[in-house]
């Protein structure tokens, strides 16, 4: 078994209006419940918006130690992530597909190195 990080990419800016968001979250939780039921779920977290992020650069990086903002300049940032355990990429991709259908967001699938 391999663990995969499923990162959900969220556009910056205002979230969908409350009713739509509630429906989306219900669908996302349903996928999470299915993962738990099937024994595939390891962890999942939602994040505060990228505007709350802070970057720290230690010694050896020629830049201020602490700066405001997410690491990459982009229009989308990781809004949350799920870790699943799967036998192979196809299984991980099918979870990602369900999560993407539920959240209406693109999902990046990346194997976790042991």
């Amino acid at each position: 078994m391999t663990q995969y990080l499923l990162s959900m990419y969220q556009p910056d800016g205002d979230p969908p209006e409350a009713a739509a968001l509630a429906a989306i979250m219900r669908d996302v939780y349903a996928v999470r419940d299915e993962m738990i039921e099937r024994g595939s779920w390891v962890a999942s977290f939602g994040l505060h918006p990228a505007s709350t992020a802070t970057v720290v650069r230690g010694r050896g990086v020629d830049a201020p130690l602490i700066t405001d903002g997410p690491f990459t300049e982009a229009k989308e940032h990781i809004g949350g992530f799920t870790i699943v355990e799967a036998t192979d990429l196809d299984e991980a991709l099918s979870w990602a597909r369900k999560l993407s259908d539920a959240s209406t967001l693109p999902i990046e699938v990346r194997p976790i190195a042991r």
Partner: protein
Amino acid sequence: MSPQSEVERIFRQHRGRAVAAMIRFCGDIDVAEEVVQDAFLIASQRWPASGVPDAPERWIVATARRRAVDRFRRERTRGDRHDQAALVHAPPEPTEDGPVRDDRLRLIFTCCHPALSPAASVALTLRLLGGLTTTEIAAAFLVPEATMAQRIVRAKGKIRDARIPFRVPDDADLPDRLAAVLAVVYLVFNEGYDGHADQHLIRDDLCEEALRLAGLVAELMPDEPEAQGLFALLLFLVSRRPARLTERGDLVPLVEQDRRRWDGALVEQARSVLRAALRRDRPGPYQIQAAINAVHADAATAAETDWAQIVLLYDRLLACTGSAVVALNRAVAVAEVDGPLVGLALLSDLVDQLDGYGSFHAVRADLLRRAGRAADAVVAYDRAVERATNGAERRFLEMRRATVARAER
């Protein structure tokens, strides 16, 4: 044939099959390639003296398997990370009642997994199933060898680390995955049919490999008319192989080929595969291309070709692909029906997209020649020659150019 080149021929013919079998056996692409290489090395030392065994492929797989077992045993006794050896994941498949799976079919679905870029898929398939060296693949795709080597290493790394499975996909995933596989098989065929390697304009082994893979995919997916369509298309193209080159290795264009030399049995097979596909009434680009070739095959002589029918088929092909190369081929057919000037007018819309493509200038040169504009034709032939990708094509174009230039004087 010298014993050494006989071993090389066997190597080319069986390498893909042996590598696929070894990947399933030992679960590691690099190890599989190495042990198969070892087996061929042993063969090249032994066979010249002992003779080639009756079933060389089985000998190679058995020898490679022994090497793999020795290797794993050595690594285990060394306390090496046997189970960490990044293994290719080959989950069990339901076997009852299912069609017989070919290891190479599993491998092609792995190589053509949509998680890999198309460029990586083609390179891996050619390397693992076509038995091409990285040098040959790099030359075929006009990229530096180091770039191609890195592309292959990365793709193998992704298969290993992300655990892209070594199996034929589930029914639900099959249609999408199939489209990717068909595209790669067709590219492999084209590499064999008019690849860039100078000495082998027609690499029979690659064409055979693509044809076999297309046949396997068609057999495995009897309900997928596009899989049948690709198989039919390749059968039509292979049927013309005997007439496609002169004895000196010069290209003979379709309309000038001696049609008696086309392989009638293959044409018949192609027709029947295509008929069965078209009955399903789900046309697609491969079926339409096969149908175009069927129209050519129906004409006993080039003059009897039903070009109007071909134009209609190209209209449909253009509608579903939108490809500039299809538009170029359509222009050729239109020129046969309505004359070279109409064809030339169509080409003028394609210059921007196809200026770097040799065939565009070759087609244009031919139409200019037929329109009586010899001086312009010579210039167009020059451009085509500059962009020619292999020696046979270049010789052919130079001959045409010389003929036109002489006529002009």
